[in-house]
Every structure is written in structure tokens, then in C-alpha cells.
């Protein structure tokens, strides 16, 4: 028996090593199932914690926004500091379509996504040949342009008041129609959108496009010298990211039943950056999801104790960037790594 085992061991040692391969990404992973279940069960346990369903809805919408934003920052290495603009464009497009075009959830949502993508496409066409600080400054400048238009173009956008009395349109599937009037119903609708975005982005970042985007992030010049059209990859990443921001913005307009300039402000653009960085978007796909939940919960829980919650959150952000720039996901990876050793 021992001899057989020894022979098997020798044979195994002599056999050629298996060809190294890329780890398959899978379509639906275990963390996805955990995240979907955790969110889907919020109506069962949120109240027991003294929280409310609208909070879960808001968190889910910001998760979508942050995931889309992280395609740009975390996966392509492109720092946009004016991304609130595309969130706002989505919100306004949804509202305007509903008020002036047709009151259909699917058409209005589709138009919001298209409007976000179109705004992103125009801006990205101007900035995709830049990188680093120039790229970041241009995103701020364009973001401010959108914000300014939202404030000043009163006849269309409603000026500082924004678009009010937007409806939560029903989700009509032809054979059945579901009302989204309640926060709980709208939350489940947003959760479905979140699931689609998660699965889609997961697949995208592991696709050939995602791999090349990752290469562009690490070394733009070398990516060009091996034949990739770096400009086009950067442009596409921006457009997809802006389209997802548009979707999140439309959901936000439904949640708030209004669209107003503040959603496009530099403030809002900064929030999504903070979410992604604190969550650990630079090292993990799940960083933006963690960061968005952490931010909104911190706002509500800290906000219950002090009006200056943002000061404390800002200090936490500074500490995180200084001492653990990999964010909460980085801390988790470190913990898991230590346990594995």
C-alpha cells in the first residue's frame, strides 16, 4: 500500500504541471448571493434595529451609483470628481420624460440611462486624452457646468426648486403591473436593478474589455504600445459609468419624487468618491457597496447624535486615506489573509 502511494506520488511529481489559467469569474458568486439576501431580507429586520425601509432604498440606490462610479475610479484608474452630474442628468431626464413625454416607467428609466450615457459620452470625448490631475480637474469643470445649467435653466429644470411631484410609476410587465408607491415596493425594484448592475459589472470587469481596462489603469503608455486604443477604452468606461449613474439618478428621483440641482452638486460628487474610497473600491469589487452602506448608515446614525456628523465622517475618511487607503475591504482582506496563514 505504501509502495503504491509512493509510486503515485512520484508519478504526480513527474507529471507536467497543469497549465496556469485565469481563475474563472463565474456569473453569480457567493458574495453576490449573500449581498442580495442581506438586502432582500431588510424588511424583516430593519425595524428591529430602529431603522426604516426608505434607508435601505437609499442605500441600494447609492450602491448602484457607487458601483458604476468605481468602474471608472477603481477599475480604470480615472478620477472623476464631478460624477454627481450624471446622477443628476438621470434624475432630471426621468422627471422631464415623465412630465412632458410619456408616463411609462420603462421608457422613462431607459431615457434616463440614455441621457446619463449621452452626457457622459460628450464629456468623455473632451477629457479621455487626459490623465491624472488634468482629467480630474476637467471632470469637476464639466460637473459644474451641468449643475449651473440645472440651476439657471428655470423653464426646463425648475431652477433651484427642481422638478416636483414626480410619480412613482408602476412596473408594468404586460401580464401584470406592480405598484411602486410604497417604499418597500420601490426598494425591491431598486434591488432588482442593483442585482442587474452587480452581475453585469462583475462580468464586465472580468471580460476581455475589463482586463484591458485594468491594463490601461496600470500603464496607459504600455497598453498603447501593445496595440490597444486607450482613448476608446477610457471613453467607453466613462460612458458606461455615466449610464449607471443615470439609472441611479432616475431611481433617486422616484424615491424622492423630485429632481433638484443639489443632486448634481460638487458635494454629491464628493460623497460618491468618499464612499468608494472608504469602502475599498480600489482593491475590491465590493468596496463601493460596503462604502455606500457605511456612508448612509453613518449619516443616519451619527446624524442622530450630532449635526456635525460630516465632520466626524470627514475625519474618519482622512484617517482611512492616511493609514489604510485600501479601505474597509482592504481591512477585511488583511484579516482573512492573516487567518489563512
Amino acid at each position, binding site marked *: 500500500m505504501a509502495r503504491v502511494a509512493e509510486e503515485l506520488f512520484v508519478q504526480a511529481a513527474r507529471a507536467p*504541471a497543469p*497549465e*496556469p*489559467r*485565469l*481563475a*474563472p*469569474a*463565474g456569473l453569480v458568486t457567493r458574495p453576490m448571493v449573500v449581498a442580495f439576501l442581506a438586502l432582500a431580507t431588510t424588511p424583516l429586520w430593519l425595524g428591529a434595529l430602529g431603522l426604516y425601509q426608505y434607508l435601505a432604498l437609499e442605500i441600494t440606490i447609492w450602491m448602484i451609483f457607487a458601483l458604476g462610479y468605481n468602474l471608472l475610479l477603481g477599475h480604470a484608474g480615472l478620477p472623476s470628481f464631478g460624477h454627481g452630474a450624471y446622477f443628476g442628468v438621470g434624475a432630471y431626464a426621468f422627471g422631464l420624460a415623465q412630465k412632458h413625454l410619456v408616463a411609462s416607467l420603462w421608457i422613462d428609466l431607459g431615457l434616463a440611462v440614455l441621457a446619463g450615457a449621452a452626457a457622459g459620452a460628450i464629456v468623455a470625448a473632451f477629457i479621455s486624452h487626459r490623465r491624472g490631475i488634468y482629467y480630474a480637474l476637467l471632470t469637476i469643470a464639466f460637473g459644474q457646468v451641468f449643475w449651473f445649467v440645472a440651476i439657471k435653466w428655470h423653464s426646463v429644470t425648475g431652477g433651484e426648486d427642481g422638478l416636483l411631484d414626480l410619480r412613482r410609476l408602476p412596473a408594468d410587465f404586460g401580464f401584470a403591473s406592480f405598484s411602486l408607491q410604497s417604499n418597500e415596493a420601490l426598494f425591491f425594484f431598486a434591488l432588482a436593478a442593483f442585482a442587474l448592475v452587480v452581475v453585469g459589472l462583475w*462580468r*464586465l470587469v*472580468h*471580460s*476581455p*474589455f*475589463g*482586463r*484591458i481596462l*485594468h*491594463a490601461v489603469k*496600470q*500603464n496607459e*503608455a*504600455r*497598453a*498603447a*504600445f*501593445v*496595440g*490597444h*486604443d*486607450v482613448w476608446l*477604452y477610457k471613453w*467607453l468606461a466613462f460612458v458606461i459609468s455615466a449610464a449607471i449613474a443615470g439609472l441611479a439618478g432616475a431611481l433617486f428621483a422616484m424615491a424622492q419624487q423630485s429632481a433638484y440641482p443639489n443632486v448634481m452638486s460638487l458635494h454629491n460628487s464628493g460623497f460618491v468618491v468618499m464612499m468608494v474610497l472608504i469602502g475599498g473600491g480600489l482593491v475590491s469589487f465590493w468596496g463601493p457597496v460596503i462604502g455606500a452602506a457605511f456612508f448612509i448608515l453613518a449619516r443616519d446614525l451619527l446624524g442622530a447624535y450630532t449635526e456635525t456628523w460630516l465632520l466626524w465622517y470627514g475625519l474618519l475618511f482622512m484617517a482611512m486615506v492616511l493609514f489604510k487607503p485600501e479601505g474597509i475591504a482592504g481591512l477585511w482582506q488583511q484579516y482573512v489573509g492573516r487567518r489563512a496563514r
Partner: protein
Amino acid sequence: MTPLFEAKRLGKRFGDAVVLEDINLAFAEGRLSGIMGPNGAGKTTCFHCLTGRYKPDRGEVWFAGENITGLAPRAIARRGIARSFQIMSLFDDMTALENVLVATPGLRARGFDMARDAAAATGLAEEAAATLARVGLRGKELARARSLAYGERRALEIAVALAARPRLLFLDEPTAGLGAEGTARLAELVRELKRSLTIVIIEHDMPFLFGLADHVSVIHWGQVIARGTPDELRANPWVQRSNLGALA
């Protein structure tokens, strides 16, 4: 014989400084050509003009019968010209396998596929692994580029260039920073590559270059001051006067 690659009357200046003046170079297919010259001679600028990083102010660059002057690096790369870099230019946080994989024409062709898993693309990882094995990096496939030893990173530089399956390979000072043992290993690798590729090397290490090259051009003061086989150059008075003869 028509050369595979040709630079005709190439000129480049930065402000008042004329870096290249009337450079003429021709590289024959299947041969290993060298470019040498002292520091500041304009070798690297010349290399950048030939591979698309800089647009020459005047003159023309021809490859396989096509005028490629001023084309973007990606367009030049797609025509079958690859290059390595003197200051290493890798995808540092990616594994050696991924570094090579993203440079393969197979992945490039699928570059706008956003729906399928790259890991499911048949043959690409195997092709990348074979390229790594070719440069002596078998067993290092899953190591991050930044964690590799200096000599291994140099080999990976070449592997990334080779992954594009080029017809012409430019190597920019490939021995930079390598010790005697690393240089010897690299010479062996280049000798092996020479059997299937047209190669152009810019090099400071004259024994390395003269031991491999079929033909060498000497650049000094932004001009080609001499050209010929290594033996011819050793005897060339211009080369000796420019203090390069002693190095050879």
C-alpha cells in the same frame, strides 16, 4: 534587398536643440540590427520616433512597404512592430501571465467583448504561458510583476513585447541594470529569438551588442556617423574617435 523597416532623413528637435538630424536607417528582415552611440547621442529619441512615441519633425518611416510616419503607437503595434522599454514599463499589479495576456492579439481582437469571461477564451492563457516559458519565466506565471526579481522583470518586458507576435522587435537597452550573469542569459534569449524575428537593439553594452548583431549603426551628434558589421566598426576611425571603439 528591400529593407523591412526604413527611416529616411529623420529629423527631430526640441525647442532650439536639434536631437536628430538627417537620420537614415534600414533594417533587413531576419537580421539583428544594432544602434549604438554615447549618452545624449539621440538614440532613445530616434527609437521613440521609429516606434511612434514621438512624431518626427521631418523625414519618413517605412515598414513593410507602408509609410508609417507619425502613426500612433497602437497603430504601429497593430502592424507588427513591438518594443520593450529601457525604463521598465509593465503592468505591475497584474500577474506575469496577465501582463502577457493583455498584449496578445487574441485578447485585443476580443477587446470590446464585455459579456464573456476572459478566462473562458480558449487558448489565450496557454499562449501567454508559452510566451513566458520562451523567455525563461516558466513557474512565475502567477507572480505579480512587481514581485519579480530585476532580471525576471527584464525578461517579462520582452515577453510582453513578444506576446503581440511581432514581425519586428525593438529592444531599448535590454541589458540596463543587469549583472554579468543576467546579461549572458539575455544574450542567449536574444540569440534564440533572432532565429525567428527581425530585431533592432539600442544598447550601451558593446560586447553584448557586437556579440549578437549582424549590422550596427552608430549615432552621434544626432547623425549616423558609421554603419557596418561589428568587425568593420571596430576598425572604423570615426567610431574609435568617438570613444566607442574602446568599449567594443
